[in-house]
Structure formats: structure tokens, C-alpha cells
């Protein structure tokens, strides 16, 4: 089984984690156009590569960032969100 390292709980089986997609900057809903907002809501960077993603360790409800190669399925780094996005 694949192991993922939670920044709080250390290495745990990947089945304990929940994936919540790529980290994406949100445009300001008050100033952006409808088209920009639709792009943010629906469109995704679907191509493979190294991505920064939101993950959660569900038993402890710990949200954090993982850098993962989505073609090789290798987790390169996990760390707490630093506020940049």
C-alpha cells in the first residue's frame, strides 16, 4: 500500500487521506468578469506534471499541501499551507 506523510502524524496509508485538487488562486469575485469566474469554477489544468495539491488526513482532519508528480504517482513533499496559494 502507498504511504503518504502527514505533516502532523507522519507516514500513514494513503487510504486515510482525502484529495481536494490543485492549489489555485481565486480571483476576486467582486472585481473579476463572469468569464474569469467561470474559468476559475470549472476549468482545470488537466495535463500531467508536478502539482501542488490540497490533501487532508481524515482521522485527524489535518489539511496540508502535497507536491506530487501526477504521472508517476510520487509524492515529493508535504507541508502545511503557508498562506501564499
Amino acid at each position, binding site marked *: 500500500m502507498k504511504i503518504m506523510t502527514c505533516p502532523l502524524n507522519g507516514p500513514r496509508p494513503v487510504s486515510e487521506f482525502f484529495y481536494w485538487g490543485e492549489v489555485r488562486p481565486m480571483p476576486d469575485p467582486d472585481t473579476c468578469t463572469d468569464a474569469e469566474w467561470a474559468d476559475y469554477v470549472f476549468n482545470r489544468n*488537466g495535463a*500531467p506534471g508536478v502539482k501542488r495539491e490540497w490533501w487532508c488526513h481524515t482521522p485527524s482532519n489535518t489539511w496540508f499541501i502535497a507536491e506530487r508528480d501526477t504521472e508517476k504517482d510520487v509524492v515529493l513533499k508535504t507541508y502545511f499551507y503557508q498562506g501564499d496559494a
Partner: protein
Amino acid sequence: MPWRLLRFALNRKHPEPRMFTHHDKLKSSYDVVIIGAGGHGLAAAYYLAAEHGVKNVCVLEKGYIGGGNTGRNTTIIRSNYLTPEGVKFYDESVNLWQDLSRDFDLNLFYANRGHFTLAHTDAAVRTMRWRAEVNKHYGVDSEVVGPEAVKEAAPMIDLSCAGHAPILGALYHAPGSVARHDAVAWGYGRGADQRGVEIHQQTEVLGIDVQGGKVKGVNTSRGYISTNKVLCAVAGSTPRILKMVDVRTPIYIHPLQAMVSEPVKPWLDPILVSGSLHVYISQSARGELVMGASLDPYELHATRSTLDFVEGLTSHMLDMFPFLSNVKVMRQWAGMADMTPDFAPIMGKTPVEGFYLDSGWGTWGFKATPVCGKTMAHTLVNDTPHPLITGFSLDRFSHYALTGEKGAASVGH
């Protein structure tokens, strides 16, 4: 027939190409270039040549014919969807399927079995009623039935599902069928080949030449081809091709896994799907139990399979059919599913002139192979979307006008 076979076996040269002509060289230009020799790409080529007389067409395939999701799916064919756009579209596909073996002169093992979507909660029963009403309105054979009808069709089932998920009823769809997946790709491929289309295997598209917003050509692992029209029919590789033309879409990739058991005597005629237990099952003509579940939980561009999947699927399958506990799992595999947020496909024109998409087929596109070929051929020739696919256009997302098909497509592929 046996004579011909014997003569063929004794002949040292084996002169007949089994299904397709092999072409040593690519031409320098084609009227249409199709990327991907899965069922969809080959069907589009077939209808371009057969119905529109467009024969200067090539289909480029980086691997081998049908080696993508076409050869990895669990072959469920049905039209009991939720949206009017979906029901009309898939119903046309089911109509085409029924004549396909005859059209190709090739046995597709199209087997009409009947299809039950089991409901274990009141909410599920409500969705089934909704689907049945939409289906009937468009003339599709579909009805809500009680648990006794399920028991009659599959006597080995435990209706209480080990006590934790009693079956309250089901959506029954008599036209539900299965077919031999490879044969579909071969049938369309041979038909296209006989009409002059060139199929090039082991030929990967590496880039698309776009100038002034228009397609001018395609870069391949075997050289450059000029063309004004490209059809992208690559399922799980769609985002990689979209990156080449710089078109943004909601498509994201998750693996979908499936498995088969060792062959056993025929005991299961219909196809059974349980949305609540996240599993489905049918029995193939060879006696294997073909089983699947819902998507893998995170994005991945690879076709590895996992033990988690087998454990989760078998434990729920045993809730439904406890007597299978001694049956062995024989093979498991995965395909890359090109998912959309509303579980409807993305088909038709794009912001790049001459670049057409047949994508977003996720976990449900095998059944649509014939109708996709037909409607995409029409769309390419007329440069306007076929009336059956207007609800699936890429620009629906910029208008917040989704085609919500999730209630009919998330587990029951």
C-alpha cells in the same frame, strides 16, 4: 470454411492482412487527421468515408488499435440517462449498435441482457423514478421495479445485502446490453480501411501547428503532416493534446479500475449496478464475472491497479452475492478516465478553427462509440455541431449551462 482455414495454415506467406492494410509511409497532407485509434476515432473515420465520401483521412495511434479505454472497459451499453440531451443521444447509439454486427459482417457478441440499477435508499428510488419518467418521455424502455423483480432475474442475490443495505427497488432497462469491445474497434477500423482511410499505429502526435487561430498541421513521431482539420479522440490523454493547442477545459483524469473472476458456469443473465455499494457486475460470454466500481480517489495519469480497489470491490460484491466467496479474481486493470464536472461529454468545435473535440468520455463512453463517430463526422464535414451534440459543447461551462448527468453516470457506467 475449414478448408480455407487449412489452406491458410499451410500457406507459408499468409498474404491476407487480417484486418487492416499496413502503410509504410505517411502522406504529406490529409483532409482530416484523427488522433487516437480507439473506437471513437475509428468510428468517426468510418462514417467520414462511408457517409460523407471524405476518404483522404488518416487515424494516428501512438500504441495499437483499441489499446486505450476501448479495450479496458466493461462494455455496458444502455440509454436510461437523466437529461433529455443524454437520453436522445444514447438512444440513437443503442439503435446503431443493434445493426452493427451485420453492417461490419463481424460478430460483436452484442448480447441484450437487461440492466438493473439497484436502489438501497429512498433518495435513490426517487432518482430512479425521475430517470424512468424522462426515459419514457423519449420512448426509451425504462421502469421502476420492486425487489421481487430483482430476485427473479438474479436468484442468487441477497436482497438485504448482508443486512446493511436492503434493496428497495430498481430501475430496470430492458435494452441494456454488453458487447465485445475489441471487435468494435476492429469492425470500424476494417470498414474505414476498406473505404480508403489510412490507419497508422505506433505513430504519436507530438504537437499541433496552429497559426492565426487555425489548424495547419500536425507534428508526429514520424514527421509533419499538413491538414486543416484535426479530430482529437484520445480519452485519457485529452489534457495533453489540449495543452498543445492551448485550450482550457474542465477535463481532469482519474483512473478507473475493473477486474474479472475466473470463468464459472452461467448463472447471471442481467447486468446489475448498485450506486450505494459502488459496484456493478455482469457475466461475460466466457463465464467470467466482469466487475467494476467507481473512480479512483485522486488524479493520476497512469494505468496501475491497486489492492485497495480489489478489497473494496469484493467486500461489497460479497454483500450482494455471498456465494461468490470461493471464486477467484483472475485479472485487474485500469484505464485513464477523462472526467467532466457534470458527467456529460465535451464534443464539437473549439476556439481553435479546425480543431474538434470528442472527449470527456470518462467512465461512460463505450456505449456512445457509434453515435460519436456519426455525429463527429457530420460536425467535421459541416463545421457545425450535429443537432444531437449541441448540449455537449465546450462553451456550456462559460455560460454556467451544465448538462447534469451525474445521477445516471457516476457508478453505472
